[in-house]
């Protein structure tokens, strides 16, 4: 029994001994960064902060930012433990990771510097262990475009005409209630996630358009529901699936005898 207790203490002590980290930024696009984090000891707990230069925390010293984050996490955790009458998550569940991970940061500001601080956390004291490992990256600027989109409906057909031929853009539509439910009411979030998925899985180029397109909902989409509201959006996009324009969105009600465009 004494041996087991000593063994447990020894294991637990290893978690509070600093270990090194291998951190690599593998991909950067205007709004994304993919970071690989690999601790030397796969059993230690760690966390990371992500800051941009337009963020107030950018000015903080690394130690103040890192330790201040842990302090905030502690306050959040204590508050949650007080008000949640059935708790599931431990402190490390809520705020830390273990083992190697590939983290994909999305929705970053383009043309800006960003900073990642990775640091080990003692699961018992919930304090930082060892050094802070810092990585800085810069997201490239987006080459904005001034193309616009003319979206017209006739019967059950839509025609999308960009103001300039040959320039990449992306268009899609979905039921408005689904966008509200799954994408926080935002066509922007919906299209961003779609483009991000196509980019991640390597077939973005086959999903973008250039030039006019015509689409007949009645014959080309058998899942259209009579009387349901849909949102159709078009947006300029670059080779990484980033937005180069604002969205142009039209809401409509699908009707078999002719689409009703909403104001």
């Amino acid at each position, binding site marked *: 029994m004494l041996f087991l207790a000593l063994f447990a203490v020894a294991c637990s002590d290893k978690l509070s001994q600093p270990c090194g980290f291998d951190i690599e930024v593998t991909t950067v696009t205007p709004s994304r960064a993919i970071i690989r984090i690999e601790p030397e000891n796969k059993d230690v707990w760690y966390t990371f902060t992500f800051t941009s230069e337009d963020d107030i925390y950018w000015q903080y010293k690394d130690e103040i930012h890192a330790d201040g984050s842990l302090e905030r996490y502690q306050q959040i955790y204590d508050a949650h433990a007080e008000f*949640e009458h059935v708790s*599931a*998550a431990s402190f490390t*569940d*809520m705020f830390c990771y273990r083992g190697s991970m590939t983290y994909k940061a999305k929705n970053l500001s383009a043309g800006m510097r960003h900073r990642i601080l990775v640091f080990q956390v003692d699961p018992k004291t919930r304090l930082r262990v060892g050094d802070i490992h810092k990585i800085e990256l810069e997201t490239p600027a987006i080459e904005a475009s001034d193309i616009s989109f003319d979206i017209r409906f006739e019967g059950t057909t839509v025609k999308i005409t960009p103001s300039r031929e040959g320039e990449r853009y992306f268009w899609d539509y*979905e039921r408005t209630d689904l966008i509200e439910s*799954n*994408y926080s009411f935002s066509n922007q979030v919906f299209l961003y996630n779609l483009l991000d998925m196509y980019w991640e899985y390597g077939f973005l180029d086959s999903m973008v358009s250039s030039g006019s397109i015509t689409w007949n909902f009645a014959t080309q989409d058998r*899942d259209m529901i009579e009387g349901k509201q849909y949102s159709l959006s078009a947006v300029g996009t670059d080779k990484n699936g980033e937005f180069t324009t604002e969205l142009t969105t039209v809401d409509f009600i699908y009707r078999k005898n002719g689409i009703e465009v909403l104001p």
Partner: protein
Amino acid sequence: MKTVKLISILSAVLISLSGCQHPEIQVVDFDTFHVLSTKSSCAFMDSGELNPEVRLMDVGDGDPDTKIAAVTGQSIVKELLGSIQSNNLIHIAGTYQGKDVNGAPLTLSGKLLVPAKGPVKNLIIVSHFTIGANFECPSESFPLEGILATKGYAVAIADYIGFGVTSKMIHPYMHTASTAQSVVDMALAVKPYLAHIGRKPESEEVILVGYSQGGSTTMAVMKMIQDQYPTDFPIKKVYAGGGPYDLNATFDLSMEEDVTGIPCAIPMIVQGINEGEGLNLDMSDFFQPNLLENYNDWINSKRYTVGQINKLMGAKALHDLMTPEGRDKTSAQTALLYRALLINSTLNFTPRAPIYMMHSRQDRTVPFINAQKAEQFFKFNNVHFDFGDYGSHSLGALRFILNVANDLQ
């Protein structure tokens, strides 16, 4: 109000309490949940072994090389024995009003399990794992998740569309909206039914449980309840295990590595999402000739278990099942499928109740990347991530049920 005839389920249970006998079928006519049959049976035999009627997961994924906790399936469930309230359970199979994939009314079926004795603490709403044969569906079998009822809970397990009374229909596999709706509709039906038979839970709070397909569906159920039924079903806790929460990551791994996970899952996903989303895909664009010729029998007949379907398929790699066109992401059809997989993934909401999420690192059926993606998405929420060396996907299911049972009061 319809007239209730010959209810007395409890008196039938009293008759059958000596040993695990099956009482006479009782007919109960009630507004929300129409009983087809009742029976009682024990979860555990006198020897302490699990009742062989209990349907265990069968995906044929035994791998002697996986690092596992040093327990067998039976040993895992024996750990439950010391903490149960009632070994005798009443199985009530019935029908209720649900919806089809387009939201139109559809009669569905499922099973409600309640302990033969003692109070009912909460309603557990279960989303079941992948099955192939109709005889495996909850209304026609003793579902593994049903043993949670031994701890004093009412357990409601819906048959998804395509099983039970709708076994002639295509199952919209991994179509989260319709599968989650079938689960919620059953819960809506059994809630007043439980009150009617005098087994109303002591607490209004519900517990959600699901593993594998059920793990992902459980998260969809959680979201649906939060969005649409928060006062009907205040959620106490959610238990999700081994789930394909990120369908794109799951499917793309198969595509990139030319692996199948469980072979039948690939055509089931393609067909199921096609059915649920109305994509109008042509299966000949996706399935190799042997699969194309036989999938209606192997999968849609509902005659074969998942393990049997996998043997019939005999596939070692994805290209054994899917055509080059189907594996070409630049094809319009495959791109449509990927889009639909994104919409049917369940990493798209903020949970407002505690979650226990478990996944085995050795899981080759539902790849561990799903757990990693879920952890990143749900970090900073009240989620306990339990990722460990729990062996294969099916062994993980047993471990999951044990962990859930041990966590329940």
